[in-house]
């Protein structure tokens, strides 16, 4: 789960990482209140999860209440690459002497934590990596050992962080690492990490991505979930606890297993169609799960055919078939279904579907994944 900047900053604050005084605002009046409280000049920042906010006019400096009102009014409701701005972050504008970069991620290949630190911050780090790779210090950290203050300081020296900022940067690295590990982040990034003329170092931006698998030990994440940028289909899927990702094609997809679901999207694409979604109903494809899945697919107005791709391993074909028949009696579908049912007891399953009295205009059974994909795409194209 990706956090908005304001949430990332609030999350940082939990781990004592210094950020600028400021607050979130949903209205122009609130923005002015936060600005008055934070002290002018302030920066008014659009809260959207997409890069290039500044270029799009979503980040503005305001020297007084009037300017704050003007910019907040412009930015709220602004469309930035398809993301409509509903919330602002308003903070005291910092004087900046220098800009650095710091992040922690998991290096999957090395199976260790990775610190990336650079004295060249405030720009796209990928660009720095390309033009001047030596400007980025990459340090692997054994998750069992963790990051000590001494190692953090050495990394800062290696990254050519100037002496006057060393203590501040090293201390923030240790706190950011705590946020990354104890806070269960997939990514904890500060860009830029700034040095102020006063000698203080603090986080001017916050990019935080949380590991959903750890949500059981983070009740505080509940509020972040509430603001996640989901489309209406994804919202509905979430209420049913389904693994769903909305896409922009016309073939609705239901499959059991993440790998098979991904593969289903690929096969639909190969035969000239486009999937409307990714949906993994997992191992137990009973009637309740199937009905919920069909309800979510049916809600998507772009869907003109549905491809159910089930491979029975532990899940038995006859159970799946019974589930589908029952689900069809509960959900009134707009689009026809093509089903490919294979694996354990698949023949019994197909028999059940055949004998259920469902007209062929509503449900077609195909023996292989490819044939089913072709049929689903043809139906979707009105053939």
């Amino acid at each position, binding site marked *: 789960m990706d956090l908005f900047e304001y949430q990332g900053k609030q999350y940082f604050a939990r781990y004592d990482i210094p950020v600028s005084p400021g607050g979130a605002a949903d209205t122009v009046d609130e923005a002015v209140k936060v600005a008055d409280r934070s002290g002018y000049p302030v920066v008014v920042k659009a809260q959207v999860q997409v890069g290039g906010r500044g270029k799009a006019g979503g980040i503005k400096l305001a020297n007084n209440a009037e300017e704050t009102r003007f910019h907040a009014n412009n930015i709220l409701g602004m469309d930035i690459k398809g993301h409509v701005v509903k919330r602002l972050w308003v903070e005291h504008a910092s004087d900046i002497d220098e800009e650095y970069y710091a992040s922690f991620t998991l290096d*999957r290949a090395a199976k260790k934590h990775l610190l990336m630190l650079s004295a060249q911050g405030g720009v796209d780090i990928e660009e720095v990596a390309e033009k001047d790779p030596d400007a980025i210090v990459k340090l692997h950290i054994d998750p069992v050992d963790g990051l000590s203050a001494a190692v953090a300081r050495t990394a800062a020296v290696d990254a050519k962080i100037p002496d006057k900022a060393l203590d501040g940067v090293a201390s923030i690295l240790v706190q950011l690492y705590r946020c990354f590990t104890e806070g269960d982040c997939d990514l904890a990034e500060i860009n830029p990490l700034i040095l102020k003329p006063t000698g203080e170092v603090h986080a001017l931006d916050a990019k935080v991505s949380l*590991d959903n698998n750890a949500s059981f030990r983070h009740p505080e994440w509940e509020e972040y979930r509430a603001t996640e940028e989901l489309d209406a289909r994804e919202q509905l899927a979430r209420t049913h606890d389904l693994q769903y990702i909305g896409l922009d094609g016309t073939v609705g997809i239901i499959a059991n297993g993440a790998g098979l679901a991904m593969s289903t999207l690929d096969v639909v694409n190969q035969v000239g169609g486009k999937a409307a979604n990714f949906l993994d109903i997992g191992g137990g494809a009973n009637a309740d799960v199937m009905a919920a899945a069909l309800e979510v697919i049916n809600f998507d107005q772009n869907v003109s055919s549905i491809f159910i791709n089930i491979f029975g391993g532990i899940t038995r074909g006859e159970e799946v078939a019974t589930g589908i028949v029952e689900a069809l009696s509960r959900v009134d579908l707009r689009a026809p279904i093509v089903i490919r049912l294979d694996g354990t007891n698949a023949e019994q399953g197909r028999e059940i579907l055949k004998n259920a009295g469902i007209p062929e205009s509503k449900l077609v059974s195909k023996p292989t994944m490819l044939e089913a994909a072709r049929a689903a795409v043809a139906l979707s194209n009105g053939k």
Partner: protein
Amino acid sequence: MAIFVNQNTKVMVQGLTGGQGKYHGLRNKAYGTQVVGGVTPGKGGTDVEGIPVFNSVAEAVAATGADASFIAVPPKAASAAILEAAAAGVRFVVCITEGIPAQDEAKVYNTLVRDYPNTRLLGPNCPGIISPGKCNIGITAGEIAELPKPGKKNVGIVSRSGTLTYQALYELKQRGIGVSTCVGIGGDPVPGTNFIDCLREFQADPETDAIIMIGEIGGSAEEEAAEFIKANVTKPMSAYIAGVTAPAGKKMGHAGAIVSGGKGTAQGKMDALRAAGVKVGQNPTEAGDLMSEIIKSIS
């Protein structure tokens, strides 16, 4: 022969008294696997359909001589269960648990490397391992795995995805091709056993004549495997990579299946494998067809 497990492997089930552990543990036993015990703290002395239950892994090992463990416990308890098995000297640990936090996984992995180098972890979030006719640990339906055929060419399977593992088994069964061992390494970011570990074993296994590898988007395990194949694997291979059409930045069901910053794409992985001499199919069926051709050409 087979890799990692065989007919002599003695398995205990951590979480045998729970729903998943009981269901799959009993299925594994019915398949013919030597399921010799179970572990559930506080339930020692009881039994599950004749399988004795112990309070700790150490007790179970002492009493039964178990050398492998099947872990089917919730995410909160999984890390401790893995380390308990390792500390008790268990050689091969299969963890099917889905949803373990990545931070815990990274810690467990590095603890195993450092303190328990003789323990191999398979998973987490994996379907397990099956050596058809010999041993089945995990959730694979044994009946879809074709038995290896003496005197014929048999195939080893290694896969990141559960259902695609089944699909691969099924593709081979349809074609009457025997399977030496099928390993599901799981879809999490820090798997205990990776492609290379399995490829090395398959290359050395006299019963394995060819290998199918099934990967998916995210990370660089397939690219690293391709490098290894180029240098070390002489047995012919076919492969399939899922997620060609997956949008960037979205976790596709598996915690590890995500394209981020333009890295971990299916295309990149397919290119790497092709460059290593692997025949790459556009879908699982095509990978099966390619394996059919391989078997014909080496028979």
